[in-house]
């Protein structure tokens, strides 16, 4: 497939980007609102075209562990799910992070807790960037705000995953996953050849040639002193990501008296609320997070120096706001506005919240 303008769903974009970015394998389990990812892959039959393996597993527990096994051979392996399924994957994710295995996981969030609702939500922020599973680890977390970004971030994810030997999470939500938008596709990147795999993933377990020691993929180290050294190494990796891989977008922040901080679907709503505010003469800007980990702490702190207030807009009871307050050291009035349980706020509600919670 060459570069083309298309109309498609966010979930379909994820699937097509996987095929186009040279992904070697996908293992998944159906759950609303992301089932179109695997449905698209199964309908496209990429195994005939690119040799990509696609398998429906018996559970999310199995699919994330299939990702572990496949990705540990140095191949590009991905899965996708939605909130309850991602909860089941937390064990696998901490093992993946602990064994330093590059891979891609997509979470098309729905409302919780528990089985919750199948409607969009953003209440998995803590789970995504504050651990989720046990142990000190981080996932590089990208938050797409459009179908185009759903597509593009899959390509970006592979670069980051293999550069840092770390799992990458695309944290989307049911609104972006289900909505249809225009999208520019890209030229196909072929799957890695055997030589490329060996060059890009020399640590992989594909069968030990006579001229190298056996490769071991494990997250176990019984000797505490060595485990601590390893943890320092992980932390150094995360620090490097914080230094080099932060992504964000600022709109109208230069002259803003107030800013919205948001990511994903909420940033689209906040953008409209910002336009409405400007029409009313209120100088509002939008600081959109693209990476949730690493969080754009320094950049947000800089902007916060010259604003009177920050409204965090998130479809949750208030999770991201904690990192916003940490970034600004609570130096500026900061409030949360969110609808949750599957309800998407309107731009009018967001603007009213700004006026009531911050400006008044």
């Amino acid at each position, binding site marked *: 497939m060459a570069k083309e303008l298309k109309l498609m769903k966010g979930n379909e974009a994820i699937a097509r980007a996987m095929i186009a970015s040279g992904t070697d394998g996908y293992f998944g389990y159906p759950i609303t609102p992301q089932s179109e990812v695997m449905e698209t892959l199964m309908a496209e039959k990429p195994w005939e075209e690119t040799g990509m*393996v696609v398998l429906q597993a018996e559970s999310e527990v199995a699919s994330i562990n*299939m990702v572990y*096994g496949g990705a540990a051979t140095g191949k590009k392996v991905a899965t996708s799910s939605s909130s309850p399924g991602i909860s089941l994957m937390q064990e696998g994710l901490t093992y993946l992070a602990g064994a330093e295995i590059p891979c891609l996981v997509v979470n098309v969030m729905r409302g919780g807790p528990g089985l919750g609702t199948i409607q969009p939500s953003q209440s998995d922020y803590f789970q995504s960037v504050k651990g989720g599973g046990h142990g000190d680890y981080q996932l590089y977390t990208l938050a797409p705000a459009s179908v185009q970004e759903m597509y593009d971030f899959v390509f970006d994810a592979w670069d980051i995953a293999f550069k840092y030997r770390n799992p990458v999470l695309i944290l989307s939500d049911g609104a972006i996953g289900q909505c249809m938008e225009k999208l520019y596709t890209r030229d196909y990147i072929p799957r890695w050849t055997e030589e490329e795999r060996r060059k890009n993933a020399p640590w992989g377990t594909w069968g030990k040639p006579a001229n190298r020691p*056996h490769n071991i993929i494990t997250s176990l180290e019984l000797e505490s002193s060595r485990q601590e050294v390893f943890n320092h190494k992980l932390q150094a990796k995360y620090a490097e990501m914080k230094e080099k891989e932060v992504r964000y977008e600022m709109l109208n922040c230069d002259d803003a008296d107030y800013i919205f901080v948001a990511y994903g679907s909420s940033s689209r709503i906040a953008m409209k609320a910002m336009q409405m505010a400007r029409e009313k003469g209120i100088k509002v800007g939008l600081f959109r997070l693209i990476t949730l980990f690493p969080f754009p702490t320094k950049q947000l702190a800089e902007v916060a120096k010259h604003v009177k207030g920050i409204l965090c807009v998130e479809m949750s009871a208030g999770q991201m706001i904690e990192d916003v307050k940490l970034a600004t050291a609570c130096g500026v009035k900061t409030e949360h506005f969110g609808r949750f349980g599957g309800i998407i706020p309107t731009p009018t509600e967001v603007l009213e919240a700004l006026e009531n919670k911050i400006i008044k």
Partner: protein
Amino acid sequence: MANTDIEARKQELLNQGYTEVYTKTKVLTDAVMHYCPGCGHGTTHRLIAEVIDEMGIQDKTVGVSPVGCSVLAYNYFDVDFQEAAHGRAPALATAVKRLNPDTFVFTYQGDGDLAAIGTAETIHACNRGENITMIFVNNGIYGMTGGQMAPTTLIGMKSATTPYGRRVDLNGYPLRITELISTLPGTYYVTRQSVQNPAAVRKAKAAIRKAFENQKLKKGLSFVEILSNCNSGWKMTPVQANKWMEDNMMPNYPIGDIKVDGKLVENVDVNRLAVDHPLTVMQ
């Protein structure tokens, strides 16, 4: 004897006209296994390594180790290895094989890993007929965590969590997962072996060899249960434990092939209930 003395002695014998009958395979590393003296894990490791050696597939083999006593198996095999989360080895192996069809993939799991926490992964890998080899070491107890009840613990058998013996009304029946998976169309070869004496070891090795040969022929899933002792957990000497295994484990877990070349072996009743067999006293 130091290593150099051993090698010198071996060379001396060869110089005197002796032929080598047996020596440890190079597919095992020089690392000293952490297993308790007399544990069947060591023997089972050796047999797998010997089969890999004899088939000349060291450079194409990927192993998957479990959580439990054999969690560190990756240190003992000189082949590429992955360490799985508890019970998930068949899921890892599924992906390794599907993404790398030319490799030989084997899982190595204990009874808690394969038949309790990993039951779903076990059954579905078997049911899909993944072209892999599964090695299942059954000693009826959780060794690593200190001797708790396993799904395969016998009725009446004492463990740290069944201190008065396993009771059906409290704990249910011993799970004969090998018989269970033999009924799935995806399994091609299912057998139960043991490693407590030379004859048993020879048969177990032949079974493991067959399981790897099946993989070479892309026949589907081969499953080899190795009935083993846990002398520490059972609180016996290794020799006593092997005897206890023969007297008590084998009536419940009979040795032999259950399914060969995709067909259930005649006269093997996979549905038979676990024997309510009076156990000999555990010391």
